[in-house]
């Protein structure tokens, strides 16, 4: 069982209490910027007449963690995708890999690290709800077990099928995410990526990387073959040269 968040865009009034609480919880500098940065981990955007939170979706199988060469990013069993700045070497593969464009870099620092929503991993481990869900005045952001949130989301759609878009965003996107979203307008109108593969993206990396041992063995065999052929040719050439020299010596002898 792992936890998650359910964000219902139709309940959000854009008060930005979530952004404020996030800043406080994570000790991030003010102000709340208009878009997510390494210092602003969640914002509320106004799109298509609705308010929409932007934040880390906390993939069930995160691409960022799969590409991180030092294991700074990890999916915890509780649900949050955490980030350990002490391990980070600043390669920024995670920024390139994330299908939602979430991790941001501290471009203004001499020794920068990455910043992204951590789903209040410390609070979650202590059995508390995330800061954003705790302060949300309308219940637009709900914290709970992901399975229960999926049930809640489906129940809301079933109750008002003409109002809600018949889709729980995050249920299958990129293999599923711990953060789920509901909307009354198409999700692409909210600026969310809707053409994401339904299977986890690390599978794509795995398909390539799992062929590396075969490729190394094949390439090794091929190179050894080439080496054997050229070595054999050299040996034959040396033998022939020696034989010719001997032959000439024999001829030269009176």
């Amino acid at each position, binding site marked *: 069982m792992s936890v998650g968040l359910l964000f219902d865009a139709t309940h959000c009034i854009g008060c930005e209490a979530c952004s404020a609480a996030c800043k406080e*919880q994570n000790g991030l500098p003010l102000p709340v910027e208009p878009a997510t940065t390494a210092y602003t981990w969640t914002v509320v955007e106004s799109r298509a007449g609705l308010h929409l939170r932007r934040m880390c979706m906390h993939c069930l199988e995160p691409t960022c963690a799969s590409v991180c060469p030092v294991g700074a990013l990890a999916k915890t069993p509780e649900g949050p995708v955490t980030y350990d700045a002490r391990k980070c070497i600043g390669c920024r593969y995670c920024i390139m890999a994330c299908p939602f464009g979430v991790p941001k870099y501290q471009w203004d620092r001499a020794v920068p690290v990455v910043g992204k929503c951590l789903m209040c991993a410390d609070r979650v481990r202590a059995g508390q709800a995330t*800061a954003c869900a705790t302060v949300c*005045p309308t219940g637009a952001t709900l914290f709970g077990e992901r399975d229960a949130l999926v049930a809640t989301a489906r129940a809301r759609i079933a109750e008002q099928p003409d109002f809600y878009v018949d889709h729980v965003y995050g249920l299958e996107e990129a293999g599923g995410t711990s953060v789920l979203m509901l909307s009354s307008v198409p999700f692409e109108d909210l600026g969310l990526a809707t053409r994401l593969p339904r299977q986890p993206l690390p599978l794509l990396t795995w398909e390539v990387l799992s062929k590396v041992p075969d490729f190394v063995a094949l390439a090794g065999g091929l190179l050894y073959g080439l080496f054997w052929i050229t070595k054999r040719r050299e040996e034959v050439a040396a033998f022939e040269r020696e034989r010719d020299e001997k032959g000439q010596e024999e001829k030269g002898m009176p």
Partner: protein
Amino acid sequence: MRLPPAILFDQSKDSPAPVPFSHATHVEHAKGRCLACHPEPYKMLHPLRRATHEEMDAGRSCGACHEGKTAFATTDGDRCDRCHGAEVRP
């Protein structure tokens, strides 16, 4: 809307009456933006200690807005009742 309930501040010994705080009335002035007061000066998750009347009169905490221009002043000695003993609203 599920705003935090009214806060009833502790009454010190020389205070005429307890002071209630209503999120509902303040949120209107802030045009619905929680960021107007959170997380600075007021933390949401880990509230700080209460400010004293002297600190407020010097422009801290409530006094940041209740200075006589943005909102009625905390220094108005004739109208203590605007805060002390005011109606408790949600």
